[in-house]
């Protein structure tokens, strides 16, 4: 196995009386798709929130590329190579789809201000290149045709894909996807599975939260299961699926899984 | 009026002061007084002249003044300007009026520096600026004198309203306060409604004379609150307070005995019939600086009556003017535009009216 890109070491997160994560440790290896599953309220989104610096962890440590992420500003974390999507969509509604992506692409560029004011303005050519790249990303997730539409007016499913494209725009090494398939029908999920694989093949590492088991099991290299803020399994999809604890906590007695 | 009179000579004057916005009361009152003077003049001259008044609303604001002034200055028809009401607006306008030699007579801009050759800017009003009221330099010490008159061991507390007018008065008063007679100073925004803190200071200082250098809208509530808190000493104020409206703003018991100074006298005090006539003709009672505004207008009108119809002639005529004010004192401008030998009059509120108590000398 290749080395780990990010490691969570004994991470705990408490909100007043609620313990959202308790002593969670796992890592994500480079170029891997790691599925993160668990019942509602198990702490999955919280994992994303602590990685991206939305919350400061109560205890433990998060290490990204060998360096701790604690105390680092949120935008800096993104610049180091972590980008996410949001479970409840948070696009910039009054920007077009394309602009949503370009804005994230700017992340790694020199500040537009200093350059723009005192040096050359971002050159037309560079701007063109950024645009082309953003368009590529939209095409990549299959919503190229919507590039000129305002994000807020897009159908739900398109917005979800746009969230992915925007996160990819930030050129992360680690891409955090929070329920990207919510609101998709099974046929669309098949598409999405292919897209996620494509993303990995393009060199990204993916941490994927998803409730659709067939999707998770299909695309993940490995699956971590949380329950009540604790890790209860960390194994290959096949093994996890058969783990009685996981079945009990999460999957339930398999309904006629047609 | 005989509209038929085709031979009526049209003369255009201007008024500059705040006519809208927060400060409008001062300007509106002066404008009414000016128009009243014109009415009287017309009545006397039976349609020989048609006097027009251009209203230059500066909202009491120098910035507004600076854009109105060039317009007024370049309007050749205007041969005299009553105003500006405020010193700040006057200063902002002066460069334009000087350049076009528009004679101005202000009823209420009392800032010393405008006519003081030793001030920063060196009598910047010369040659166009004139004013009827005595300056802060005269009024400051007089006000102090009047306020402490007959008080055996005065302890004077002075409150200004942070306006150029109020602060100016205090500045010129300060030098004339004998050692040991000062109980303290306070500087209070002219938007103040609650005076508890100032009153507490006055009480702490055990003052027995309180002078307010500001305008009547604030003076009334201030005095009221001060009296209601149990203060029994003397209350005094300058010409900014000397308005008939002042009397309507506080219970008679509160303002009984308030001492005031001014270059002129309220219309009602000059002649109750005059005030009644004013009210009849203008639809409202006269305001602060009414007498000054009438005097200022009269200077222009008397020149008009002498046949003046250009700015040059008007300026000459104003400079040479010598006549009686409403109160009977002499109006004659010195080289800097001040009324020569301007005296301050003293007043006291007695039985709900402002009574003239003689010049403060």
């Amino acid at each position, binding site marked *: 196995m290749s080395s780990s890109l990010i490691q969570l070491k004994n991470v705990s997160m408490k909100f007043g009386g609620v313990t959202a994560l308790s002593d969670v440790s796992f890592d994500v290896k480079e170029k891997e798709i790691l599925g993160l599953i668990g019942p509602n309220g198990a702490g999955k989104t919280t994992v994303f929130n602590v990685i991206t610096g939305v919350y400061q962890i109560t205890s433990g440590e998060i290490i990204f590329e060998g360096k701790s992420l604690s105390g680092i500003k949120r935008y*800096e974390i993104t610049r180091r190579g972590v980008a996410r999507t949001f479970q409840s969509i948070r696009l910039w509604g009054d*920007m077009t789809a394309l602009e949503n992506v*370009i804005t994230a692409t700017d992340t790694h560029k020199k500040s*537009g201000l200093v350059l723009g004011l005192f040096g050359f303005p*971002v050159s037309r050519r560079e701007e063109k290149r950024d645009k082309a790249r953003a368009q590529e990303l939209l095409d990549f997730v299959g919503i190229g045709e919507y590039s000129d539409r305002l994000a807020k007016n897009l159908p739900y499913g398109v917005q979800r894909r746009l969230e992915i494209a925007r996160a990819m725009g*930030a050129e992360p090494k680690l891409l955090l996807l929070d329920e990207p398939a919510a609101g998709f029908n099974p046929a669309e999920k098949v598409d999405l599975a292919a897209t996620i694989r494509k993303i990995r093949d393009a060199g990204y590492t993916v941490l994927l939260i998803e409730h659709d088991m067939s999707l998770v099991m299909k695309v993940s290299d490995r699956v971590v299961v949380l329950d009540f803020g604790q890790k209860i399994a960390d194994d290959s999809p096949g093994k996890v699926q058969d783990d009685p604890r996981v079945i009990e906590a999460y999957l339930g007695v398999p309904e006629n899984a047609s | 009026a005989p509209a038929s009179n085709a031979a009526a000579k049209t003369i255009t004057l201007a008024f500059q002061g705040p006519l809208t916005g927060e400060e409008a009361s001062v300007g509106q009152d002066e404008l009414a007084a000016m128009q009243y003077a014109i009415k009287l003049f017309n009545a006397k001259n039976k349609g020989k002249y048609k006097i027009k008044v251009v209203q230059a609303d500066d909202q009491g*604001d*120098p910035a507004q003044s600076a854009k109105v002034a060039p317009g007024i200055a370049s309007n050749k028809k205007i041969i005299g300007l009553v105003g500006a009401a405020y010193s700040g607006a006057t200063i902002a306008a002066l460069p334009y009026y000087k350049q076009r030699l528009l004679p101005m007579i202000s009823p209420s801009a009392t800032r010393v520096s405008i006519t003081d050759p030793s001030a920063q800017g060196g009598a910047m009003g010369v040659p166009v600026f004139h004013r009827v009221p005595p300056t802060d330099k005269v009024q400051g010490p007089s006000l102090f004198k009047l306020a402490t008159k007959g008080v055996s061991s005065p302890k004077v507390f002075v409150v200004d309203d942070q306006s150029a007018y109020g602060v100016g008065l205090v500045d010129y008063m300060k030098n004339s306060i004998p050692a040991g007679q000062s109980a303290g100073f306070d500087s209070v925004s002219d938007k103040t409604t609650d005076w508890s803190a100032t009153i507490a200071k006055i009480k702490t200082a055990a003052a027995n004379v309180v002078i307010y250098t500001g305008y009547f809208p604030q003076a009334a509530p201030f005095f009221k609150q001060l009296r209601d808190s149990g203060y029994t000493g003397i209350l005094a104020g300058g010409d900014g307070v000397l308005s008939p409206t002042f009397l309507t703003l506080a219970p008679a018991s509160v303002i009984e005995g308030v001492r005031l100074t001014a270059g002129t006298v309220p219309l009602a005090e000059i002649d109750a019939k005059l005030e009644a006539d004013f009210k009849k003709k203008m639809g409202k009672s006269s305001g602060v600086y009414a007498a000054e505004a009438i005097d200022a207008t009269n200077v222009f009108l008397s020149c008009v009556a002498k046949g003046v119809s250009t700015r040059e002639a008007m300026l000459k005529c104003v400079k040479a003017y010598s006549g009686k004010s409403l109160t009977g004192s002499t109006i004659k401008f010195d080289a800097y535009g001040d009324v020569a030998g301007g005296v301050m009059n003293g007043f006291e509120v007695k039985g709900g009216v402002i009574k003239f108590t003689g010049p403060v000398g």
Partner: protein
Amino acid sequence: MINLRDKGAEIWENQGRVGRVVLALCGVTVVASLPFLGGTILNTPIADYESVLVYPIAMFVLMAIGLNIVIGKSGLLDLGYVAFFAIGAYTMGLLGTKTGLNTWEILPIGIAMAMFSGIILGIPALKLRGDYLAIITLGFGEIVRIVALNLGALGRSEGILNIPTPPAIFGIEYTFDSHRIYYWTLLVLILLAIWMVRRLSARRAGRAWESIRQDEDAAELLGVPTFRYKIWAFVLGASVGGAAGVFYASKTLFIAPDNFTLQISILILACVVFGGMGNIWGVILGAVILGYLPDRIRFISDARLLVFGLVLVIMMNLRPDGLLPRKKREKTIDKKDAT
């Protein structure tokens, strides 16, 4: 109502390079020749038409452009913008009367002072959101005025007198009554400001501000250094206000705290929103109209501020996004969210 903005943008987009240059030159020429139209219907009664062009119109335009960076671009509700204008003006007033420096030398100093105070104010204020920011900035605007009102060195309520006019530059002479010259100079400043804003906001910085305005958390989490951009917006806005202040003081020769009241901040804000927040052309149009209107309607004398207020109410209700709204209704879609 026809969508002026889109019409304009369409015409612009359909032009080639040459066409655009020609269009721009024509526009500038028309605007620059405004002072010659004093004899027409445009004339303002009582107030001097050319002075009105300088102040309030051009001055408001400049300030509105500055405030638009703060509020229109990055969504920070600043109710104390007049503070920067005041700081620029007082810098000019003090240095102009106390040192031998002239207007052109003081201009960068005034701008720097305004920017510096922008940082000082921004650091505590920009941690706050929405209306909390509004009240802090409003307070700041008042503080600047109150300090000027109470500090002897700043002339207190009497203000500062005899501020020098700018010395001749490129053979152009400035006297206090050469309104046209001032107008044209301001025009140059305005063009510079437009150029700066467009250069900055067309691309990266513009998008960053936009994203902050719409969802600050999401922006931060996608790598936008939000605090830094907000400070930048504040400081840039301040710089424009400061420049306006310096030039203003050097024009009126006399400044006093009364020139820098909260009402000015509110008026400039009204210009921005009235014209079309976020769209520089809209903002300019708003400032022109709201600067011009009170003087154009002087003939109604007593009621002119009342009418002014009515115009604000009616126009905002008819065109809530302003006269020339921020760009983009989508090409085919009107925004009318039926909700």
